[in-house]
């Protein structure tokens, strides 16, 4: 799991992720981003805007930012949000949903 996380966790926020395996109260936290098929782990700073994470995920998945919705516990994640404002903890998970569109059938 850790390997996978390590492998899959890009170093974001400029912080040295490898040499600073931070405890729970550390400055960095790991966030799992998952749609129904894939899970991607990100290690980001608490103060980093999640926009970075979202665009990195979309880029990796080949999706448009406007066509996906990132939800944290059912709440829409705005690009300007940070893990602090969302009160995220290490290991929390962001769900990626498709844009909801409806007309009739």
């Amino acid at each position, binding site marked *: 799991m850790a390997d996978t996380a390590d492998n899959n966790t890009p170093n974001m926020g400029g912080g040295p992720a490898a040499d600073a395996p931070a405890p729970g109260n550390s400055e960095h936290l790991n966030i799992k981003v998952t749609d129904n098929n894939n899970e991607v782990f990100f290690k980001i700073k608490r103060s980093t805007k999640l926009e970075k994470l979202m665009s990195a995920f979309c880029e990796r998945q080949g999706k448009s930012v*406007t066509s996906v*919705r990132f*939800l944290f*516990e*059912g*709440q*829409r994640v*705005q690009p*300007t949000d940070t893990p602090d404002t969302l009160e995220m903890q290490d290991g929390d998970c962001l769900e990626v*949903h498709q*844009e*909801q*569109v*409806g*007309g*009739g*059938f």
Partner: protein
Amino acid sequence: MAPKAPTPRTTRNSRGLRSSPAVSSVPAVPSTVTRRTSTRRTAATTTVSAPVAPATPTPRPRATNFSSAAPPLHQIKEEATTTATPVTVRRRIFPPPVALPPATPTTTAATLQHPRVSSIRGTPRQQSPRTPIYHPQRYLVRWVDRTPQPVVPSTPDSPGHETTRFRARRDQEDEEEFARELYIAIRNDHLMRDCWCGPPIIYNSLEEAEEGGGHFRFYTTGPDSKNLRVIQKKDDSRWHCICGQKVHPVYNDLLNSNGKRPATDSELDLIAQNEGLQTAQSVEKVLPAKPQQEQIGVQPQLRSMWDRARGLASSLVATMSSPFHNILGKIRDAYEAVETRSWSAQDDTIVVKRVKRQTQQKIIPGEQSHDENDPEFAKLAWAAVPTKRIGYFKLKEFKNSLNDQIAIVGAGRIVSGASTIEEIKAQIDAGYDEATSIAVLKYQELMFGPVSPQLPEPERAEQLLTAFYKFQHTLHQAHGFINQLYNPAHFEDIKKAHNTPPRKLVLGDYVFRKHARETAEFMCFLSSLKEFLPMSRDTLETLSNICVDANAVHKQETVPSFVEIRTEGPYADMPGYFPEDDDAVMEPVHLEDMRIEPFYEFRYPSPELSDSDEDLPKNPGLYRKIAKPKGILKPSKKWDAPPSPKPYCPTPQKKRILAFESPVSRFIPPSHIPARVMTPSEAEQLLQAERKAKILRDKYSTRIFETSKTVSRSNLLFADSDNQWSLDGLEKEDEELGLKYHSQKYGDFLNDVKEDLDEREENKKRKKDELDKREAVLKRDKVLIPAPRRLRTPERKRRELARVAELNDTIASPAHPSPYTNPFRQQKDAEQQESRKETKPKMSAFDRLFDDDEVERMLMISTQKVQELELNKQIEDEFQAALKRDAEEKRQRELEEAARAERRRLEEERRNREEERKRREAEARSRREEQLRKQTEEFLALTGLRRPNRPLIEEMSHDWHEKVANISMTNPTVPLAKTPEGQDLIRRDFEEMLLPPTAWLNDNIIIGSILHVADAINTYKNAPATEPKCAAFTSFFYPRLVSHGAKNCARLLRRANVRKNNFYDIETILVPICEHSHWTLAIVRPGQKTVAHIDSLRSGRGRKEVTDKMFELVSTVLEDDYNEQEWRAVDYMAPRQDNGWDCGVFTITNALCIALGVDPNQSYSAGQLTEQRRRLAAVLLNGGFKGDFGIEGY
């Protein structure tokens, strides 16, 4: 006065030449009258006007007038006889031809009948076995029927077109010979009469001839159209030409197709040189203005004009010596003066009396029936005879004197070369007539001014000749006019046409009225001669009478001689028509003081008239606007005087072409090359023309006539003036023309045919008269016979026929001899007629009127009585029949009434049933509606919803429309709005996910809108953010609720401020759901303790699994306080979505409705949602339901 004409003339007359041409044929007299023709006329007229000898059986004065124009004098007399008494002396119409075998005419005709004609007709002539029916009785039956039917009964002797005589004559001679010579005879007749219409047409085939017109129709036939044939059309009474029709050739020739007269060269010169100056020549040529006789408003003005009448006769005499055209103009003014009634005065002068006219103010213009309201005019009644006022003998005497004048003028027995009356008196000897010479001299003075002895002889002779011809022409014209005017038959017609004398009476055509005017002028002229000639007062009176009458005819007024005044008292029996001293009607005016303006302006007034204001027309509206003659030149524009030295010329300069005066050289085509090859049709025409010319050339004429051109005899005679006065020359000419032979051969025949035609017309007229009389009697007796149904059962017809036959026997035949019953009897009749004619002298109408022949009168009376008795009997019969028919009709009507009542009753019942049914239906419907309403109210009460105070979806302002429309032009990456959640809305959300009418809404739009709804409600109810009245979740709430359970939604509930302690304070919780690409809305209303799911595709009803989830949510939030029994799921009613794209809009709008507490069904309809899309876009741009989109007032 005039001695008898020399004997040679009399013999000429017996050849059947025309006797009095120009006098009687008023409408179509060419103005050129020759001395030569008048010589003949003189002779003829002298014979006619001589007193009828008691025993002149043969030759009786033959009616040599072939035209259907006015008959000569003696014919008029005969017509007068006819109208005066119903007893008609049947004229001899069947002189047995010389070479005719002595068989009966009908059998002869049958055997000698022309085969071709009968084959064309298809009905071979045979003796009709039917009993001939007497026509007046048939008319009577028809009258009772009251159905107007054509009065053309087929007489027994006309199975074909041709009369017996015609057929006999044709069969007697060779057919070809007959047609050819008849044609020439007719042509000669035309020639003799100076007829303008030319000889009869020669048609190219029998078919054409059948289609053509005229009594005799000629056509060519044979293998190469060499043979001339003639057919007779009995039903065409127009003789063989159209010269009887009232068409004046002068104006036809003058007028162009555009109704304008082409200008002559001299006129062009005149106008170009001397604008405004009119000489006699131009005055003579200018066309008359069209009299507007139909205008009603004319009359009042006329009356006022009459009131302003001034003196005339003095001016007439005073202007005697003026030049011709001036005089003519003044005369035309002057004669009008004498339009009043003349009356003899105490002294030698003449005082006229005229009818007082009402002033213009009393007449309402345009009102036609003022005659009845005019008490003065209502006193007028028709006189018994037209000559009652003038006096029959006085008129006769006057006409005799006119005839004398005509004779004298015709004989040329006037003094020539004299310039004064004294000279004339000095030269008078046995051969000349003094009075006529003086009259002609005065006429010359009238035309050319005083005759001065210094004038060169040729010019003076020319003047005299012109005046002489004019005088002669006018004399003839006046004679003819007087004959026509005082013709009793015409008068009877007028009386028939008008019950009472009308103010406006139009007699004759324009030409006739023109003659009336000229006659009036001439009478004025004659009366002015009283200074030079001894004239009796009777003559003067007659002159003025005729003048007044002619003037009235010209002005289209009632002729004074025709009327008399109906007055009580001493004037009732007056011979005249006006009471002597009845000031209410009459006012005496001295003749010398009369002057009356002309009613119609027939020519352009002379310039000297228009110079003085006094002489201008007083009522210009009546007058034709005096303008430049249109057909001559366009009115010249008024240019400013150009600085050119050349004077302005109104006529356009002719285009100048430089050319040699005589051609220097000219191309002459070679003679062997034809200029143009003739086409076959042209060749055929040429051939036919040649053939016709051949046909016309006969062995008796040495001259050849052209068919297309009328050869005027006068022109011919003028051509060689050497022998024009000699009798020998005339005879020679007649020989050349072949006139003599043909006139001798066919003159009688043509006369007889003409008489036949006249007689038939007369018969028709008589029958019509009788019919009218019977009708009048019926009307007088006021027998109201209803118009009967025509039941033509054989029984009825048989009865009618029997009655008719009975009547035939009853009525004595002398009055109406039927020559068609039996040929023998016919012959006998003819013999009787002959014998009677021999024994009885010919009498004029007047003589017959006062004849003492009691037998004839008794016969007449008895015939009338018998007719009246028959009439009464028939009236009685018809009356009884009508009564019976009335009764029958009444019974029928009652039956019909009963049936109708029954039908009405049934109809009533049916209608009642129908109404009852309708009423019940309406009750049921209203009950259902009431029930529905109650249910709705109950439902609304249950759900706490109400009706909105104003429509939810209103039209946005123009600005917002602009803003929404401008979205498409913004930067696609720049956020346009922010949802309450903080989510940016970019151009894509609006442009692709909201505004297109069929776009599917995405979560951004739905969530943003629903959050805005909740915010608006909370703001409106002043609820703090932590204690909301309306809470809204995002569309991601429900999936989490489903997937994670309600317990794992604590974070979302907290963010929405839904807690256990404030749960019941929240009114509405909105949960948008997106499942399977379909937006729906779940609602929790804690206050009502209800949950609901609104699906727009199901008209607002929800699904149970959604409400179950909501119950789960509620129980999770309330934990222990949740009482499952209290909570229930409800279905809200909402408009139904009927398309595949509007559910998001439905969801938002329903959320708004429920949050507001109004009923969605009554708030909006599905059709408004396209507008709602724009409105939502505007709301999102606006940042919520505030400002222009505030929710206040719902």
